[in-house]
């Protein structure tokens, strides 16, 4: 078992304290809300996709440190990227967080590999993944994402419009 202490690394604590891209977006092309009924994590995500690229992205809500830092680092990572690039990150992050992908082989995640520690904490995997679920839901015009529902958009094949 990986040392779960590694989970609360300075980079995560820093993004929790000072989340990047925090707030609302006036003119968004895509929006979704994410909700984890188990712990009450709740976040609103808005983005503006222009010319195939994520020009602007913002989030706000109430959540644990893992969820907030994950959202903050996600928004920083996908800003300026194409939707396809973002969806590849979603896939890679999900597979790393659920233990399907060795973090050493998560070639595109960069600093996001800091969340690998949740693999050994099944109840916390959902906290880390929620922002990514929500981004996926926003792309697919699903109004809300949840970590519990059967209609979990992450169960739909990625990239379906």
């Amino acid at each position, binding site marked *: 078992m990986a040392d779960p202490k590694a989970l609360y690394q300075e980079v995560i604590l820093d993004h929790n304290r000072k989340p990047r891209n925090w707030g609302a977006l006036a003119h968004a092309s895509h929006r979704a809300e994410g909700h984890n009924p188990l712990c*009450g994590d709740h976040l609103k995500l808005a983005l503006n996709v222009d010319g195939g690229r994520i020009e602007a992205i913002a989030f706000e809500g109430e959540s644990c440190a893992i969820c907030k830092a994950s959202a903050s680092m996600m928004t920083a990572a996908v800003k300026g990227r194409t939707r396809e690039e973002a969806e590849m990150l979603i896939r890679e992050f999900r597979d790393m967080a659920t233990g399907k992908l060795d973090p050493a082989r998560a070639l595109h995640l960069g600093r996001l590999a800091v969340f690998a520690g949740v693999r050994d904490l099944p109840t916390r995997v959902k906290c880390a993944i929620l922002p990514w679920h929500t981004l996926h839901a926003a792309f697919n015009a699903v109004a809300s994402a949840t970590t519990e529902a059967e209609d979990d958009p992450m169960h739909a094949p990625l990239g379906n419009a």
Partner: protein
Amino acid sequence: MRTVAPARQSRGAPAFDVERVRADFPILKLKLAGKPLVYLDNAASSQMPQPVIDRIVRYRTTQHSNIHRAVHTLSETATREYEEARSKVARFINAREEREVIFTSGTTDAINLVMHGYGRKFIGKDDEIILTTLEHHSNIVPWQMLAEEKGAKIRVVPVNDAGELEIDAYEKLFNEHTRFVGVMHVSNALGTVNPIKAMIAFAHARGVPVLIDGAQAAPHLKLDVQDLDCDFYAFSGHKVCGPTGVGALYGKAAVLERMQPFKGGGDMILSVTFEKTTYNTIPFKFEAGTPPIAGAIGLGAAVEYLSALGMDAIAAHELDLLNYATEEINRMPGVRIIGTAEKKAAVLSFAIEGVHPHDVGTLLNQDGIAVRTGHHCAQPVMKRFGVPATSRASFAFYNTLAEVDALVAGIRNVQKVFT
């Protein structure tokens, strides 16, 4: 870490040798990630002492068969042991008669039994059911299902800022439509001990029966259903050091007699033809199918174990733990106790400023400390106190003052990580 003066250990209580008690619980010897287990999630499920484990093993290895069926020796032994467990439970809660104790799969099952057996027969359109803001979802959802089916209404008793029921408001909720009251004895989320005896008397004066959800009271308080005069009292085996999958419902014989069965099947009938089925007498009318025999026998052994320790001694030791933990945590800046009722059982919900309970839970776990974090299946309580979730330390008689110190040190560490 403070050392605890020996005087504290015995304050106001008969001598309670916690180290000797702990030796009965094999799981308390566990180490997690090199740290001794500090188990403070007893409100979710308590641990099982060796005598209860041994009792279940003895049943499994030498006494198992189906009950109330065959004439062979094992069946007679299993039947006798199962019925003996019923009388142990009856003594534990001071029921007038053994037939007033029904084995269920747990508190939730017991409440559903009352909803189907009593509620569906006696509660109808525009009738009102009084519940409280403090209720666990298991004492809310069944009544909502009934209200939806029958067109009945649910009225809710509010709580004050300390987490105590507003009794004036409770009394004002009664009117000519009131048909039922459901209230928990001890709040699982806040620890509040509700004044149920007075609430029951008030309801009875208006001819309204009362169900008590005793899931959180049975492990902590000496119970006397005759003195309380409740119509129903429900609790679970796994919260009183017994196994999961079993619980008990006490019901007054006269009330149980008037009820319709909940589940149909074997054992709950006297005779069956396709023209007419005659139901068995209580308690069997409510125990359809093969019951959790080993579970019931384990529950019987568990309540016997608690009674031997003495519920008064248990309550006194737990009060020492609660008072010490409350004092220590009140001293910590940035930590708020949620639920400050004057009468509390050893349940301590708290919030650390700026830190989500799930982060608290994960970090405490790294120190070997098991607490519950979340909404505790009591979302109306969380809403009332304006928090999405809390961290909850819930104590049992086998916890120690040193474990309270470990909790306090753990909280300090959480604050350090998050500064």
